């Protein structure tokens, strides 16, 4: 078991006052709170800070911790043989603790001593846009801590396969019922909440349930209006490019976005691609167009500045 230096976790000196500790906690909580933070390991850091605060805010626990003396963090730790700590146990403080904390401050460590619902847990899953469209499965490893008859926590890693339904959007939360921490004294288990992130796609870009696609077309397809094949998440469809279209024209394929009620649309943005002139024949064609299709696309800019 590793020794935890609660003072350095909080970034305060060993002689810090209760006020300083509270200030440090508030500041770190704002930085690492999983609801607020964009730091990568926010959740783990927040738990660590919460645990440190739980010990250092309580004069009794802090005194007991101080009596251990100093050790390097991460150093192998065993409680002294004469270690005695009777924890009163506040049932509202059920939270996850490190082994170090559990060893020092009792297996109950604030865990409810009456029937109560297990804690909710959280995780993140990254899915591709195709998976969001069709639904997918993910194998996840979850950490579960159950409490044995003697009140000691028993951590275990379990694997589970979660079916992610079709129609998740970026930032969506999904609930996996009863897969959080086990309840105490026969209480129901908590839930597992997963935060879904959509991975970027080569062509498609999701905005909520709508899917955006830049579609390259030729100048003659744009000018004459032609039916072109367009990829959608459900497969290729025919799309009629209206005659006389310009780049950035948006065409809507109703209901071809991510499923839901209502389903999203696919928005196709036309991008005219000009053929590169390769050789004299191509150049002649362009010159012919220049002569026959006289136009000035910068007309509106002229005369002003």
């Amino acid at each position, binding site marked *: 078991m590793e020794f935890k230096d609660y003072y350095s976790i909080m970034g305060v000196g060993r002689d810090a006052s209760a006020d300083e500790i509270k200030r440090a906690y508030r500041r770190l909580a704002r930085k690492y709170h999983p609801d607020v933070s964009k730091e990568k390991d926010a959740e783990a850091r927040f738990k660590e800070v919460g645990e440190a605060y739980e010990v250092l805010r309580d004069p009794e626990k802090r005194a007991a911790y101080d009596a251990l003396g100093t050790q390097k963090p991460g150093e192998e730790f065993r409680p002294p043989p004469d270690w005695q700590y009777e924890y009163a146990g506040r049932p509202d403080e059920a939270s996850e603790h490190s082994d170090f904390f559990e060893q020092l401050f009792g297996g109950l460590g604030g865990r409810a001593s009456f029937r109560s619902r297990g804690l*909710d847990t959280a995780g993140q899953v990254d899915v591709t846009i195709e998976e969001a469209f069709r639904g997918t499965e993910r194998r996840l490893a979850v950490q579960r801590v159950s409490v044995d008859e003697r009140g000691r926590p028993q951590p275990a890693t379990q*694997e589970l396969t*979660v079916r992610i*339904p079709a*129609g998740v959007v970026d930032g969506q*939360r999904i*609930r996996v019922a009863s897969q959080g921490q086990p309840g105490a004294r026969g209480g129901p288990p908590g839930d597992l909440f997963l935060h879904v992130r959509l991975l970027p796609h080569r062509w498609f870009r999701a905005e909520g349930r709508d899917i955006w696609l830049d579609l390259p077309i030729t100048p003659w397809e744009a000018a004459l209006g032609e039916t072109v094949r367009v990829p959608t998440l459900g497969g290729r469809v025919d799309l009629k490019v209206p005659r006389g279209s310009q780049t950035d024209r948006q065409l809507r394929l109703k209901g071809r976005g991510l499923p839901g009620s209502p389903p999203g649309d696919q928005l196709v943005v036309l991008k005219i691609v000009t053929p590169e002139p390769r050789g004299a024949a191509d150049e002649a064609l362009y010159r012919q167009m220049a002569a026959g299709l006289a136009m000035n696309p910068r007309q509106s800019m002229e005369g002003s500045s």
Partner: protein
Amino acid sequence: MTDVISAVLLDESVEFSLSELCSLCSVTEEIVVEIVAEGIVAPTGRERAQWRFSGVALTRVQRVVRLQHDFGVNLPGAALALDLLEEVERLRRERR
């Protein structure tokens, strides 16, 4: 275990009753009533017994309760923080 467990999208299509919401968020009905009065979530249904909360509402209630507890702010403060956080998240998504 090879069982496949189904996840449920927490969007507008799922519904929770007041008592389901309370048990999922580990809060009393009074707290949810205050949260509704603060305008943080708006259930459908007139009487409390008919109140139905969406999956989006569940997430908001859970977050506002956590923010209140972990930062020691009052409910209007937590509601403001939640609105701002959601705005930041929306802007970040748009920028990607």
